[in-house]
């Protein structure tokens, strides 16, 4: 029982991290109607940037976010402008290929500069733990959770309390209508992609401390993140957060009850259940148009 409880707590804590990463992904989808298959690679890139920054500048991994988040934001704006914006026809399909190419490019560059060896970010809190009832929780999970919650909160405040946030939400609701009332949707899309990448940077740090990673790690990540946003409903931020928590808690519980090798399988079981019961996801809307 304690084991299950421990797994549930751990699931909630890591679920917060996935909630942040998935929010970025679903935000990008919501604004641009594109699936960013490169999101996993961007998280891994974030982890490597933090790795390089913490090593060369001797910074604490979390502190490197001050550098990596703005860098990744700008990179996101650049990538969106150069590679996504030029797509005029058949955007939906072509953008999948473009973002896939971005993922391959990042994987290749990381492999070139950092080799395929596994790396991990280190700090005092990656092994130190504190007691919770009958078990102990490593500090990094708590810190990661708090950090991601804070960033997620900031993102929601930005989206719901600022004028620019309102134009992002307007674009998510109806791109054409947003354009008609004078919103610069291209700028909104670039900023949204930037925000998505900044969240990937933050997620990358926590991912990099809690997991050993190499340039190929993005495949595993992206299949999880994509499953999460399908469960939540594509383009729904609330859905992404809740789905991330559901997925990670079920995964961690499966890991202790059945076996760790079957943990990832929970994702697929839940996905199939979603497809049967509610193909549009928790907070998705069934649309008549081809979404």
């Amino acid at each position: 029982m304690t084991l299950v409880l421990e797994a549930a707590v751990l699931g909630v804590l890591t679920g917060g991290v996935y909630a942040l990463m998935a929010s970025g992904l679903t935000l990008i989808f919501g604004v641009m109607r594109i699936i960013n298959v490169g999101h996993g690679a961007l998280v891994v890139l974030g982890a490597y940037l933090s790795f390089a920054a913490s090593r060369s500048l001797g910074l604490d991994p979390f502190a490197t976010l001050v550098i990596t988040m703005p860098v990744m934001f700008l990179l996101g704006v650049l990538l969106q402008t150069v590679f996504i914006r030029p797509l005029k026809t058949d955007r939906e399909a072509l953008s999948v290929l473009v973002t896939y190419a971005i993922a391959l490019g990042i994987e290749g560059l990381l492999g070139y500069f950092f080799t395929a060896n596994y790396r991990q970010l280190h700090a005092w809190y990656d092994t130190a733990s504190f007691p919770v009832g009958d078990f102990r929780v490593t500090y990094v999970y708590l810190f990661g959770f708090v950090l991601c919650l804070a960033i997620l909160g900031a993102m929601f405040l930005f989206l719901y309390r600022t004028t620019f946030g309102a134009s992002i939400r307007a674009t998510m609701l109806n791109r054409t209508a947003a354009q008609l009332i004078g919103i610069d949707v291209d700028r909104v899309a670039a900023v949204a992609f930037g925000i998505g990448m900044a969240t990937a940077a933050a997620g990358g740090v926590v991912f990099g401390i809690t997991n050993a990673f190499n340039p190929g790690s993005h495949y595993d990540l992206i299949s999880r993140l994509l499953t999460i946003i399908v469960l939540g409903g594509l383009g729904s931020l609330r859905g992404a957060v809740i789905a991330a928590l559901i997925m990670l808690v079920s995964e961690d519980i499966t890991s202790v009850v059945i076996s760790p090798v079957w943990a990832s399988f929970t994702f697929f079981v839940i996905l199939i259940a979603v497809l049967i019961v509610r193909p549009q996801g928790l907070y998705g809307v069934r649309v008549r148009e081809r979404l």
Partner: protein
Amino acid sequence: MSALLRQSRVLKLGGIIAVFAVALALPAISPDPATTNIAVFTMMYVGLATAWNIMGGYTGYISLGHAGFFGFGSYTLGLLLAHLGVAAGYTPFLLVPVAGLGTAVLAVAIGWFALRTRAATFVIVTIAFMFMLQLLAENLVGLTGGGGGLSFPVPPWGGDYFNTPYYYAMLALATLALAVSWRIRRSKFGLGLLAIRDDEDKALAVGVPTRAFKLTAFVVSAALVGMIGAVYGYYVTYIYPQFVIDPLIGISMVLMVFLGGLGTLSGPVLGALILEPTQLWLAYNFGATRLYLVLYAGVFLGVILLLPRGIVPSVMELIERRRARAGPSASTPAKVAAR
């Protein structure tokens, strides 16, 4: 029937026969293993891209998970050979259709779930199913050998001849895929698929059984890919989950179709003939470093940003515009012949 149309038909048929004759004679023309090895892989991708196009091109449902079917076909043949105790030789080739059948059954199950969704969600679901198959191949150690992989019997032939049987097997499957794709394209079923691509709800409204059509296209496409995967497994003689259920194989066939022209018959062939040798060349020259992936990504981005509609449609449009300028009477038969 105008003379011009008849002439263009004869030219087209002649062209197809000539290309096919070259493909048949290739191992005799250039028997050295380095060339035939490239030929095996190129022919493999001709088949894969053509098969993928039956679903992705005709119905517009982009599957990024076809590598799952590729690997499943591969594993099916490998396990069949191991459990039936089939000796190496030509017999394994005869069992390739069984692998195709197995993959078809799997595709019915996956398609049944996946086709409850459309467009973006469908793309994601196919990716997820691919990784699910990869995980299953890894975890069902008793069946698949898990991460330790699965060995195929090593064929008794060797030397310059080693690649030849595989080449002809790949050629046969590519031809089969093309024949199926051509047949579908000219059938009422194919028309229904194109209607789904253009507007699924309207297609349903006018009486196209969209669900059955989509599932059929998906299963046909997957079964062909599974058979090709089976031959591939026998060719490389050793497979493991990440190697044979490789997302890169899945995305490569998609890219080839987009390069050649989505939904066209010759586009996937052209795309494969251009991209696979390029990919192999990059892998050969830069494979030691990960720079290979960066270059491939560059090719990738170049193709999509410069030729978003693919070679065949772009060229067709160019020809049509020329003809239209030359005289309105000539443009009509050209349009018919273009299809």
